[in-house]
C-alpha cells in the first residue's frame, strides 16, 4: 500500500481544519476579528516590508562593511527574536500533537511535517515575518538583479523553516525535560529572567549604550542559530561573495532539518508516552480555606483555580524580578529635571501592567472552568455572585503582583514620594472596576475554552484579544488625562485624587453593570457552555 493516498487525505484534513480555524466557529464577530487580525498583520507587514526593502536596497549597493552587515543582521535577528517570543507565548501548537494520528497507518514524520507547515501557514504573525523577508528580497532584487537572488531566496526560506523548527523544538524541550508542572513554570520564568538580566546588565556604566548591549548579545548570537547562520549567509550574498555564502546556506538548511527532526522525535516520544500522565503526588485532603462571607465557597474555588494555573506561577516569579531589574538599571537614569510626574512612571507602569498580565483571566472568566462551568447554571448560585467571585479573585491576583513588584522596585530604586505611591495605588484600584466590568461582558459574549498549559496555546480568541486592546487603550486614555493636567499645573497630588475619583466612578458603574451582565450570562448560557464545556479533555 502506498502512502500517497493517506498522506493526501492527511494534507486535506490539515487544510480543512486550518481553513475552519481561520474562518472561526463563533459566527460573524469572530470571523471579523480574525480578518481584522490578518488585516492588521498584512498591511503592517507591507509597511515594514517596505522599510526592510529600503534597507536591503542600500545594503546590496553598499558593498562590504557595516552598511551592509548591520541591516542584514538586524533583519534576521529582529525577526527571529520576535517570532520566537510570539511562538512560545501566543501561538497555538495543537497541530504538532501526534497523539491523534498514531493510530493511523501514516508515517509519523510526515504527519509532524504537515503539522509544522499548518502551524506556520495558519499564524498571522508568521505572515507578517514573511512579508518583511519578502520586502528585503524585493529591495535587494531592485538594487542588484542577478543569479545571487536565487541563493538569497534559499536563505530566507531556510531561515523561515529553521526558525519554525527551532520554535517547535524549544516547545518540545520545555515540555519533555521539565516534565513536572512546577519545574516547567520555573524553567520558563528562568529563561525570561535570564534574557532580561542579560539585556539589562549589558550596560555597565552610568549610561548603558545600545552598542554595549549589542556587543553583549553578539557573544550569544549562535544560540539564535537560524538568525546567525542566515545573517552570515546574507552578509556574504549582499556583498557579492556568493561562493562564501554557500557553506552558511548549507549549515542553515542542515540546522533547520536537524531542529525539525529533533522536535519530531521529542513529539513522537511524548505522544507514545501518553503525554503528561497522571503525575503529581496526592495532596492533603482535609483543610481548605476558611473565608468569610456569602461568597466564600465561590471565592475559594476561584482563588484555588488561579493559584494552580501555571501562568500565575510564571507571573509571580517574573514580574517582581523584572521590576527589581528595572529599578536597579533604568530608574536611576530618569533625569531629575524631567519633573516629579515623570518619576511616577515606573510605578504607574507596574500598576497597569499587572492588570494587563492577568487579562487572560478577566477577559475570558469562564474559559478555565471548562466542563465545570455547567455548575454555575445547575447549582442554586446567583450568577452575579459567580461573576463577583471571579472578579474578586483576579483582582486579588493583580493586587498581589502589583504589591510584590512595587516592593521589588522600591527595594532596588529607593522609596518613591508618598504622592507617587498613593497615585499608583489609586490607579491600580481605580482601573480595576473598569476592566472587570467590561471584561465580564467580553467573557460572556466571546467565551473560549482555555487550556491549562502554557506551551500549547490557551490564549484568547482574536475577537477577545482585539476587545482587550481596545479596552486597555480606552481606559489608559481616560486615566492619562489627569496626568496631562498635573503636568500642566505642576500639582502631582491631582493625579492621585483624579484617579481615586475615576475609580469611584468605575466602582459605581461596575455595581450597575453586574446584575445586567448576569442576566446576559443567563440568556447566553447555551452558547457559553458550548464554547467552554464542549471539549472536556
Amino acid at each position, binding site marked *: *500500500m502506498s502512502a500517497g*493516498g493517506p498522506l493526501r487525505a492527511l494534507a486535506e484534513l490539515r487544510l480543512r481544519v486550518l481553513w475552519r480555524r481561520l474562518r472561526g466557529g463563533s459566527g460573524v464577530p469572530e470571523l471579523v476579528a480574525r480578518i481584522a487580525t490578518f488585516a492588521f498583520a498584512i498591511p503592517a507587514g507591507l509597511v515594514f516590508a517596505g522599510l526592510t526593502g529600503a534597507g536591503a536596497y542600500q545594503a546590496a549597493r553598499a558593498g562590504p562593511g557595516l552598511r551592509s552587515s548591520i541591516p542584514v543582521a538586524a533583519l534576521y535577528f529582529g525577526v527571529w527574536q520576535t517570532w520566537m517570543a510570539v511562538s512560545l507565548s501566543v501561538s497555538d501548537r495543537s497541530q504538532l500533537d501526534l497523539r491523534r494520528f498514531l493510530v493511523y497507518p501514516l508515517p509519523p514524520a510526515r504527519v509532524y511535517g504537515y503539522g509544522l507547515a499548518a502551524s506556520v501557514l495558519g499564524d498571522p504573525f508568521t505572515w507578517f515575518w514573511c512579508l518583511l523577508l519578502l520586502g528585503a528580497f524585493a529591495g535587494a532584487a531592485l538594487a542588484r538583479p542577478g543569479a545571487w537572488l536565487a541563493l538569497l531566496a534559499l536563505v530566507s526560506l531556510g531561515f523561515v523553516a529553521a526558525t519554525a523548527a527551532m520554535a517547535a523544538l524549544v516547545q518540545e524541550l520545555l515540555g519533555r525535560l521539565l516534565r513536572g508542572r512546577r519545574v516547567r513554570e520555573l524553567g520558563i520564568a528562568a529563561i525570561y529572567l535570564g534574557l532580561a538580566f542579560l539585556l539589562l546588565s549589558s550596560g555597565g556604566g552610568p549610561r548603558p549604550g545600545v552598542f554595549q548591549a549589542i556587543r553583549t548579545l553578539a557573544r550569544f548570537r549562535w544560540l539564535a542559530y537560524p538568525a546567525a547562520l542566515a545573517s552570515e549567509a546574507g552578509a556574504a550574498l549582499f556583498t557579492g561573495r556568493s561562493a562564501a555564502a554557500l557553506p552558511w546556506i548549507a549549515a542553515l538548511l542542515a540546522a533547520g532539518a536537524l531542529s525539525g527532526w529533533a522536535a519530531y522525535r521529542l513529539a513522537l516520544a511524548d505522544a507514545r508516552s501518553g503525554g503528561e500522565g*497522571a503525575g*503529581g503526588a*496526592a*495532596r*492533603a*485532603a*482535609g483543610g*481548605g480555606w*476558611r473565608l468569610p462571607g456569602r461568597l*466564600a*465557597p*465561590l471565592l*475559594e*474555588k476561584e482563588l*484555588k*483555580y488561579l493559584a*494552580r*494555573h501555571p501562568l500565575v506561577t510564571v507571573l509571580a516569579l517574573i514580574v517582581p524580578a523584572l521590576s527589581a531589574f528595572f529599578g536597579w538599571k533604568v530608574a536611576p537614569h530618569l533625569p531629575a529635571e524631567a519633573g516629579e510626574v515623570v518619576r511616577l512612571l515606573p510605578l504607574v507602569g507596574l500598576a497597569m501592567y499587572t492588570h494587563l498580565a492577568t487579562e487572560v483571566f478577566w477577559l475570558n472568566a469562564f474559559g*478555565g*472552568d*471548562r*466542563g*465545570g*462551568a*455547567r*455548575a454555575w*447554571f*445547575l*447549582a*442554586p*448560585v*446567583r450568577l452575579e455572585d459567580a461573576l463577583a467571585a471571579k472578579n474578586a479573585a483576579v483582582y486579588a491576583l493583580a493586587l498581589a503582583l502589583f504589591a510584590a513588584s512595587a516592593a521589588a522596585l522600591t527595594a532596588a530604586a529607593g522609596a518613591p514620594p508618598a504622592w507617587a505611591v498613593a497615585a499608583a495605588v489609586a490607579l491600580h484600584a481605580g482601573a480595576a472596576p473598569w476592566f472587570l466590568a467590561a471584561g465580564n461582558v467580553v467573557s460572556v459574549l466571546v467565551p473560549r475554552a482555555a487550556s*491549562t498549559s502554557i506551551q500549547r496555546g490557551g490564549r484568547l480568541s482574536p475577537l477577545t484579544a482585539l476587545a482587550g486592546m481596545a479596552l486597555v487603550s480606552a481606559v489608559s486614555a481616560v486615566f492619562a488625562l489627569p496626568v496631562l493636567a498635573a503636568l500642566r499645573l505642576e500639582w502631582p497630588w491631582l493625579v492621585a485624587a483624579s484617579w481615586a475619583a475615576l475609580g469611584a466612578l468605575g466602582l459605581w458603574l461596575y455595581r450597575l453593570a453586574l446584575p445586567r451582565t448576569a442576566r446576559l450570562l443567563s440568556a447566553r*448560557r*447555551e452558547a457559553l*457552555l458550548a464554547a467552554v*464545556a464542549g471539549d*472536556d479533555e
Partner: protein
Amino acid sequence: MLAIETHGLTRLFDGKPAVQDLSLAVPAGAFYGFLGPNGAGKSTTIKMLTGLLAPTSGRAAVLGTDLARDPLAVKRQVGVVPDGLGLFERLTGAEQLRIHGQLYGLPRAEAARRADELLGALELADQAGKLVGEYSHGMKKKLALGCALIHGPRLLFLDEPFEGIDAVAVSGIRGLLQDLVARGAMTIFLTSHVLEVVERLVTHVGIVREGRLAAQGTLEEVRGAAETLEQVFIRTVGEERPRPGLSWLGEGGAA
C-alpha cells in the same frame, strides 16, 4: 404528587425540533427511566428541566415549582449528574465535593462531613487529594454522583450515568441508587442506553423518539407481560433497518 410535570415542552435548534410537545408526568418517589435512540432529545430534555437550556415553548414544573418562575428554588432541591459531568478539573476530589455542598447552601463543616462520607461510600477516599483532572472516567462519574447527592436532593437527574464505566462501578452506583429509592428518599430521573441495567432499576418508563414521547407509564404498563424492555424499545422507536452488504469486510485491508 408529581415530581416532574411538563406540558407541550418544545426546544428548537436553528428551527429544527430536538424536543416537540413533550408532556411528561413523573410521580414522586418513582425511579423513572427516560429512554430513546441517539438524538431523540433525552439530554435536551434533562437540560431544559435542570436549567441549562431554555425551552422554546411549553411549561415545566419540578417538585411543584414552576421552573421558569423560580429556578433557584428548584435547583436547591435537585441534584444533577449531567452529560459531560460538570466537574472543576483543578480542584481535588474532596474540595470539589465540599465546595459543591457549600454552593448548595450547606454550612462548611456539614459540607466537609458529608463529603468525607460520600468519598467513603463511593470508594474514592484514597483519591480525595488528587486533582479531578487526574481521575479516570469512572472515578469522575462517581464523584459527579457524589456532588449531585451531597445536599440531599429530593429529585435526582442522571444523564447516562452508566456509560463508559466498568461493571464493578456500575454495580456500585446501581446499589446506591436502589437503596435511595427503596428508602423513599428521592425521585430519580435517568437516561441511559444500557437497557438491561435500566430494566432492573426503574419503576416507570418514558420512551422518546424524534423528540416526541412515544410511550409512558409504569414499567409493567410499557413492557407488557411477555416482553423485555429492549424489545419494547426497538418496537417503539422502529429502528429496524435493512443492513448494507459491506461485502469488502474480511478482505484484509485496503487494496
